[in-house]
């Protein structure tokens, strides 16, 4: 099942890769030369080959996060020549192919950088801040076994489609990485939109947005400057309309939420 064609000479590349032993250590770029990379392989497969090369030279391979390699798990966390997930729109790093680069090119590879995403090692960063935001309210509180029949809830197709547009978020954090301010508004906006557009999300609508924004701020993300680079970097093309919706939901909830003493069990 192998075979194929890496006999076209391939690309010769100079890579500057961020190396950092652990979260406390100082990081730096290391330079590697790679030869004969097929233009048909993916960016991660190029890194695989770099790692095989390093290993054979007795040097420690570069650590990077990856898993599904088909653009859905959201593990990729690379900034390539200053662009989160590289040059293509609506493309995660694992879907980026080397035909996008040219022979002799110099490529800088860095991890996603943000205060809220501490670097674990090399190109691996810790995005658990997103989990903590979800844990504060990014859900519908419904116990297993209790729901009514699925078709008892009517949802306009348009609402379902808009909710799906937002729910397509893969939680990679490219929005944070690409934001000049390292803000997480697109991630939070997508989840708020997904649930606030659907009838199922209504009962917890206000407390959800208040809690999630509070947690987002606590994690140390920056402020949204409406620059919209997040949308451009998002591998799922999630629209900044979701950020506007988050703003609206937050404004509304802030102005109308009742004092904590009156609202049983929460806000």
């Amino acid at each position, binding site marked *: 099942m192998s075979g194929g064609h890496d006999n076209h000479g391939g690309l010769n590349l100079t890579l500057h890769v961020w190396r950092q032993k652990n979260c406390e250590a100082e990081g730096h770029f290391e330079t590697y030369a790679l030869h004969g990379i097929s233009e048909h392989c993916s960016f991660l497969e190029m890194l695989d080959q770099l790692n095989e090369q390093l290993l054979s030279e007795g040097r420690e391979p570069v650590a990077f996060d990856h898993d599904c390699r088909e653009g859905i798990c959201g593990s990729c966390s690379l900034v390539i020549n200053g*662009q989160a997930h590289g040059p293509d729109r609506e493309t995660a790093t694992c879907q980026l192919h080397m035909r996008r680069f040219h022979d002799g090119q110099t490529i800088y590879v860095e991890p996603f950088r943000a*205060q809220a995403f501490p670097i674990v090692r090399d190109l691996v960063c810790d995005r658990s801040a997103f989990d903590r935001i979800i844990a504060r309210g990014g859900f519908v509180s419904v116990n297993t076994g209790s729901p009514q029949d699925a078709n008892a809830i009517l949802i306009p197709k348009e609402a379902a489609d808009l909710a799906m547009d937002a729910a397509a978020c893969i939680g990679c954090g490219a929005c944070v990485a690409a934001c000049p*301010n390292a803000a997480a508004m697109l991630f939070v906006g997508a989840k708020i939109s997904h649930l606030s557009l659907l009838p199922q999300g209504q009962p917890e609508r206000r407390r959800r947005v208040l809690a999630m924004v509070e947690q987002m701020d606590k994690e140390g993300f*920056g402020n949204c400057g409406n620059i919209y680079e997040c949308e*451009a970097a998002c591998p799922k093309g999630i629209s900044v309309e979701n950020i506007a919706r988050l703003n609206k939901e937050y404004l509304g909830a802030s102005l109308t939420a009742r*004092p904590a003493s009156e609202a049983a069990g929460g806000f």
Partner: protein
Amino acid sequence: MFSRFGAFLRSSIGKKSLMAVTGLLLILFLCAHVVGNLTLYADSDGAKFNAYAAQLEALGPLKLVAEVGLVALFGVHIALGMRAILENSEARPARYKDLAPKGNRTFASMSMSITGLVVLAFLVLHIVDFRLADFSEQGLAALVVERLSSPLGGTIYFVSMAFLGVHLWHAFQSAIQTLGMRHPSYAPTIALIGRALAVALAVAFASFPVLLLATGGQWPWN
């Protein structure tokens, strides 16, 4: 109520909203300001402009209220902007080698803090020049001609208005977005309105130093 409002103002979105509201009000103020300025074009000796200034003076306590309001608007807008600059730099302590654009950023959106700071510096100068000056003898119109026709003064005013224009280029639609109003059908129009407003205000304000510099302090329509 105060604790809820306090929490709102401490939150990133709350601060941004306040910035958006103060920004929009400041745009309104600029519109009123520019209309007043344009009275300079209404005659050849600045009498209408001076009359307009006198009318404002005649408001008495109301003028004080308006000025306190303006100071508050500017103060809040500037303070929140400064704070955002600090917080944003804390949010990414380790910089990228070079964060390259991926397609949506504009020169204006990327330089809001710089254009904002320049406009702030201009504001200080502008207040010293006109609000704190005594023009009871020569009249305000003559003072304007004096200040803006000097090569340095005119250039500073012209350049500052360019910065204001760039600031406003991004500001209007950004404020609308921050206040949660975005719809795919209207967003392009809102962006267009904001940019038209930015250009119109900057051009109108800058027209005075440009004309005065060009004519060496003479009303060109004399």
